[in-house]
């Protein structure tokens, strides 16, 4: 049982995954790296573009193989470090789902709308259940950051032109808004 647990330990799984990926990359190197540029039949560089990747990936495969084998064959030797924190992984997965939503919607919905929705979900995920707490957390920081970024630091954040023009109107700015991206 202990040996099985050792095989399923995240350390071994990560090393095993890297071992497989590095071996696959070595096998399919010619498909993953374009052919070197040639001028009058001679290569333009002293080393082929695959040489350094071969060296690194071979070393990576060997080290991962050593690590995985030692973890499996010598379970009495302590290779595993620390005890790890007891975390709520369901929350972690949900957080990444929300972040993926945030990443995919920022340019589609605009910074403000996308941030407000995502921040509300994250605030709930962290334990906020009161609308009085969630709404200000979701609404105020995006507005402040948007104004600081676009008006003080003069950098652009993606925003729907309707919202951009509305903000420009509220701030009393005349003429073209800075960056109506949509």
């Amino acid at each position: 049982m202990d040996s099985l647990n050792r095989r399923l330990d995240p350390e071994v799984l990560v090393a095993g995954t890297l071992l497989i990926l590095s071996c696959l990359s070595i096998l399919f190197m010619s498909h993953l790296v374009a052919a070197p540029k040639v001028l009058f039949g001679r290569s333009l560089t002293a080393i082929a573009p695959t040489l350094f990747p071969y060296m690194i990936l071979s070393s990576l495969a060997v080290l991962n193989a050593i690590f995985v084998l030692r973890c499996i064959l010598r379970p009495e030797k302590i290779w595993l470090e620390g005890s790890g924190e007891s975390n709520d992984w369901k929350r972690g997965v949900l957080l990444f789902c929300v972040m993926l939503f945030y990443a995919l919607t920022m340019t589609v919905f605009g910074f403000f709308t996308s941030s407000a929705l995502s921040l509300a979900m994250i605030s709930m995920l962290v334990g906020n259940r009161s609308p009085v707490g969630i709404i200000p957390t979701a609404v105020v920081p995006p507005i402040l950051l948007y104004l600081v970024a676009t008006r003080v630091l003069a950098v652009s954040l993606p925003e729907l032109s309707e919202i951009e023009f509305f903000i420009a109107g509220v701030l009393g700015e005349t003429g073209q808004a800075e960056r109506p991206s949509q």
Partner: protein
Amino acid sequence: MIEQFLQGLAMAMRPDTILWMCAGLFGGMLVGALPGFTTLMAMAILLPISFFLDPLVGIPFLLGVYKGGIFGGSIPAILVSMPGTGAAVATTIDGYQLTKKGQSRKALDIALVSSVFGDTFSDIATILMIFPIALLVMQFGPPEIFAVLLLSLVVIAVTSGGNPIKSLIMILFGIWLSFIGTDPLGGVERFTFGLFDLKSGIPLLPMLIGVFAIPEIASVVMRSNQGQALAAVVGERLSWSELKRCFRTMCRSSVIGASIGIVPGLGQVVAAMMGYSAAKNASKTPENFGKGEIEGVAAAESANNAVNGPTLVPLLTLGIPGDNVTAILLGAFVAQGLRPGPQLFEEHGATVFGILIAMVIANLLFLVIGYLSVPFFSRLVTIKNAVLVPVVIMFAFAGAYVFRSDSFDLLMLVAFGAIGLIARAARFNLMPMVMGFILGPPMEYAFGQTMAMAQNAPIQFLFTERIGMVGVLAITPVIGILLWRRMRSVSMS
């Protein structure tokens, strides 16, 4: 050189530089004071701001965040025994005992003074040593640069903590990631899988924010049901006689911290623990350590802050970041068009002096801001994660987006956040991966140039013309093994 120094002094005294340094110090202390939020995370999410500022404003701003964050981490360490940063772990030992005795004000004062002392000592030492080292490094050619980069990666693998095989795996994984994009020598595409967005390689900024900030935030979310402790700053202020009593300890710890800072990979945690141990061994009353000894706080804080300056020596002279924080600083330098390395001193000597002098000025500002604002920051210890976490995530996303205005960078941010979290769960250190990613391309470039110089006879070339490179390559495994043994004995003790 004197002329460059004077130009640098004038640059560092600019009002906007000083103003942004104050903002950085304040921001760093603010984040450092929040338990669970680290200096590294603060630097990662505030890094994009520096891109839109002048180099002599943006980089001192980040250095302010760094300095403020390291001290800020000691506030929750002292008040509620929860180190805000890893560097403050040793501060917790005596700092929290002083709080329990009703002397938290005194503990925070000595933490501030000794932090400023350690920082100033190390910054002056950095200014004195960096130019002679740079002059030496200017003599290096591609073979020597390749050998030194290899040596640095071995040192990082051994000193970054944990199993060196795992660190080496992460370094190689980082180098592998650096292959994605265009080959630095021939300009051919590698590992892009036909994706246009990957042609220019993996962007450094989303990667830095992803691996350093996102896993920190995720771990806060995953254990966020902890109750918030009450914190209060009470008791007398630090007296002059107590400060005099700690002076020798602060000097000793500053020397230890500055020495550790030069070696890539060791960092503040090792420095603080070694400074604390040295103070305890040298004390006439070692039995008081761990029971609220003010010298214990001074030792840990001087040592961990003294690391800050010398970590810039390998970064600025060779382009080798010594730790996570200097990896972020490297990102800032590169984005500003200042490529750290020997050429930096030839092309931008005055700017480098300006940045180094700004670090010393930042320490004086740090003392004033810290003295006035400690009671305010101590209240932050009790702010709820439900408010902080969403705001920090928003900063991370906005920061990752603004540099290139490319939504692909947001996906990279999430992807690297996931890689960071998985690596953490598997207890793989992410710092070597970032080092491999940063140092991989210059290493391959130096290797390619060396092979071109060797003209199909590398062995003969090295042994007849580049004996220095052979020497560095020969001592690399020896240094690696010696350091590994030393690290093992330190961690066991």
